[in-house]
Structure formats: C-alpha cells, structure tokens
C-alpha cells in the first residue's frame, strides 16, 4: 500500500516537472521552427511545423537586417571588454589577495558594492559621463562600461581564488630571483586558470546579452550590438515574423551552445556570485 502511494506521488511530481519543463522549453522550440517558416505560413497556422525549410530567413536577417554587422560588433565589444577586464581585474585581485596595506578592506568593498548598485540608476549619469568623455556612439563606451561593471564579479572570484595559494610559492619564486611581475604573469595567472575560465564565461554571457547601455550609448546603426540591433525589429520589420525569429536565433544559438558545453561552470558561476554578494 505504502509503495503504491509513493509511486503515485512520484507520478504526480513527474507530471509537474513535465508541465513546467514544457512551458519553459516550448517557446524556444517554437522560435526555432518558426524561424524556418514563411510569413504567410506563420500567420495561417502558428503551431504547424514548416512545410519546407526557409533558410533564406537567416540569409535575409544576416544581410538585409544587418545581423551580420551587429554580430561582429558584439564579438568585438565582448572580446575587447573581456581582455581589459581580465588584465585589470586579475592584477587588482592579486594585489588585494596577497599584499598588505592600509585601506585594503575599503578598496575591496568598493569593488564588491558594485554588485548592489542598481544598473538602471546609473544609466542617465553614465550617459552624461560618456558625453563628457566624448565616447558616445563609440564601441569604447560599451567596452569601458562592461569592464567597470564586470570588475566586481571578476575581482570577487579571482581574489578568493588567489588568496588560497600559499604565500610560500610566491616567496620561493622571489628567492629564485624572480621579479614580482614575472611571478604574477608566470605563476599566479597560469595557476588561476580555472577561476579565469569562470570569469571569462560569466563576463562573456553578461556582455553578449547586455541591452541598456547599448541602447543609450549607441545611435549609429552599423555600430549596434546584437541585442540592440534585434530591438530595431520592433519598428522596422514588425510584421516580418520569419526574419524576426531567425534574427533571435542568431543571437541565441551561440550562447545556448556555449551553455550546453559549459553548463556546470556557467550555472555555478552565475549563482555563486549572486549568493555571496
């Protein structure tokens, strides 16, 4: 009797999972197959699978809707800001983890408080700041902003990782006559590889998705990043659902693939940073 009750419970739980899972996954599956339908097909029968595969939706989105240009802009901005974040952030994390000086706690908390700053509250101030710096409508406005806001999580993760290295390793390096910058480049950085990987992935995801900063900084069409370029669809191609779906796939597929490959690192990184903050 008891066993029976247990299996009924299991069945109910499994049913709940399936329903929630379906609600989560179906919109994305729908997006995927709708991106291969023609517009009349979409309007006539929303649910139906495509009769023939209209790959030209992707070609059109890539060329006429400029997704190709946005794609390379996104890559450039993402890569540049990650490189800058890692260079600047790992150095600061090393100093904060291993050196002893007055005001260390203050500097550390200054970076970490960044996690609490509501992003939308800095949009207008940052817009005015970028205007002063004459960086509006330049990719550097995005690179600097992504770096500044990425530093928080970068320093947080790297500092705690580097802290765990025994001082004796560094001391041994110095005994051997190494200079501190060589020790940083040849020992600390290679040893931090796992933490660096997490930080790179997290920053990549955040920058790839980012919309608000791009919205207020970038106005020239050929300088737009993917999310902002995608947003253009609302005005310009509002009834061209086929291309809209294809464009959305172009934005999403790279990060979905990345997610499927590096799932554990992505999930752990995204939640660890949030919980500790």
């Amino acid at each position, binding site marked *: 009797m008891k066993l029976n009750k247990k299996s009924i419970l299991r069945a109910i739980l499994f049913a709940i999972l399936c329903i929630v*899972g379906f609600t989560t996954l179906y919109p994305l599956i729908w997006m995927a197959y709708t991106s291969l339908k023609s517009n009349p097909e979409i309007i006539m029968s929303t649910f139906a699978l495509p009769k023939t595969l209209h790959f030209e939706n992707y070609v059109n989105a890539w060329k006429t809707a400029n997704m190709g240009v946005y794609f390379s802009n996104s890559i450039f901005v993402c890569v540049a800001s990650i490189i800058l974040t890692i260079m600047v952030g790992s150095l600061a994390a090393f100093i904060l983890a291993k*050196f002893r000086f007055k005001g260390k706690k203050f500097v550390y908390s200054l970076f970490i408080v960044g996690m609490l700053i509501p992003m939308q509250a800095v949009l207008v101030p940052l817009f005015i700041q970028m205007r002063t710096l004459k960086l509006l409508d330049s990719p550097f406005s995005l690179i600097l902003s992504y770096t500044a806001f990425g530093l928080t999580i970068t320093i947080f993760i790297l500092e705690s990782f580097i802290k765990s290295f025994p001082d004796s390793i560094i001391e041994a390096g110095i005994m051997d006559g190494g200079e501190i910058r060589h020790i940083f480049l040849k020992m600390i950085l290679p040893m931090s590889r796992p933490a660096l990987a997490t930080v790179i992935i997290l920053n990549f995801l955040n920058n790839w998705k980012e919309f608000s900063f791009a919205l207020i900084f970038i106005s020239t069409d050929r300088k737009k990043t993917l999310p902002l370029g995608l947003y253009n669809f609302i005005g310009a191609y509002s009834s061209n659902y086929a291309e809209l779906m294809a464009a959305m796939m172009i934005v999403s597929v790279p990060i979905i693939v990345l997610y499927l490959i590096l799932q554990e690192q992505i999930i752990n990184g995204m939640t660890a940073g949030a919980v500790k903050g």
Partner: protein
Amino acid sequence: MDIIFKNKRTIILGLLPALLIFCVIVVMPILRSFYYGFFQWNGLGEPIYIGFENFVDILTDKVFWSAFQNNLYIVVASVFGQIPIGLVIAIVLNKKLKSSSFFRTIFFLPMILSTVVVGLLWSTILNAQVGILNQFLKLIGLERLGQDWLGNPKIAMYTISVVIIWQFIGFYMIIFLAALQNIPTEIIEAADIDGAGELNKLIRITIPMIWDSIMAAVVLCIAGSMRTFDLVFVMTKGGPAHATELMATYMYNKTFEVYKYGYGSAVSLVIFVISFSFILISRKVMSKPEVV
C-alpha cells in the same frame, strides 16, 4: 618578504588601472548625478540651478508613483512566484529522478538568453494575431479568454510578471537545489525510520534546514526585481497609457525622449535611494536567524 608584500609602488601600480576605470565609470557618474539633480538642463545649454524643484516634481508626479507601485508589484509577484515555484521544482529534482539533470538544464536555459530575445519572443507569443497563446486557447475551446495580453492596460502588468517569473525560475531552482544537497542524508534517513510522511519531512526538516537559503533568495529576488528595465522596455516601453511604467522606464522616457537631463539625474538618484534602501532593509530583516 614584507618588503615585497608591502611594496607601495607595486600596490599602487597594481590597483590603479582597476580603480581608475571603476571610479570614472561607476563612482563618479553617481556623484555627478547628485549634482545635476539640482539643475534644469536640456543637455545643450548651461545647466540652471533650481534647488529641490526636480525632486518635488518627481515626488508629486502621479505617473512616478504608479511606476513605483508597478515596481512593488513586480517585487511581490517575483517573491511569491519565482521562489515557491523554484523551491517546488528543486524539491522534486532533488528526489534523484533519472531525468533530473535534463530538467535542470532546461529550467536554467531562459536565464542565459538575452532579455531582448525573451521580450520579443514573448511579445510574439502573446501577440493577438499570430501569437500561440490565443491560438492555444482557441484550440482548447477557451477562445473567449483570448486577449490582447500586452495591449490591455488592465492586464498588461500581470502578463509581464508571468514573463519575468518564466525567465527567473531556473535561477532560484539552482540556489535551492544546492541548499537541498547540503542537507545531511542521515537526518532524512532518521526521519524515515521514525516513519515520518513526505509532507511532514518537508515541513519539519527540509524547509527549516534550507531557511537561510530561502531568505537569501528573497533578498536577491527583491534586488533583482527593483532592477527590472530591459524586459518591460522591450515589451511595452511602459505603455499602454503608463500601465506598465516602472521607475526605470519613467527615467528613460523623461531623459531620452524629452531631453530633461537634470530631471533624469534626479530620478536616477531617487531610484538609487529607493532601491538601495529596499536592498538594505530586506538584508537586515531576512538575515536574522529565525531557525536555530
């Protein structure tokens, strides 16, 4: 070794680049917006000092207060939507079904998508003509429930809350799953030996054991919901007729649509103060250990 680990030059050179970027991009703009909040400025001419006028205007603007209410609405909907659903899913997944890891992958998926994609995808799904939601209702014979989900001011806010919940469930599921896996199995086994029922175990053991994580999730959820901007901006821009206006869309519309930079700075400052106090208060309230 002290000479090395206390070397001022290395310390300064090492911290300088990060501090410089952080101060110029994060700290300084916030301080400057304190300043511009007291000016009338269209972004072109000289700013004119007007004292507290901007702040008085904001706090007497009905639209701002309804935006504030909408922010609160999202906070409440998120706390009572994302957290319970995330918790239930985590509890189910923790039962070690064969398919657990598959479902875990799926539930977290919306978290990694760009908010613009989520917003546009759901706008299309909810679209009165081509959207699958109305079609689905028609299919199961509930056509009369069909709606212009985002166009009807009365229900637009509910619709948006559902989309927000959809996007973030996976995040809270992961937090709870991690907490559940930290519960020592001996405790559950001991309860099993004592013949405790599933529900009893859940209420008496599981929930109290992960209470700290639940509270941490509530704090995160409040902070996250106060930040909502992208999704609403993409889906409705705060409309129709300010029905889904949030503090952040209000700020955006005031600053970039009508070029009131001084006023926009003042709104930023108000948002900053409100969000920050929400976060701090929720941390204070929730961090009290309620279960020993």
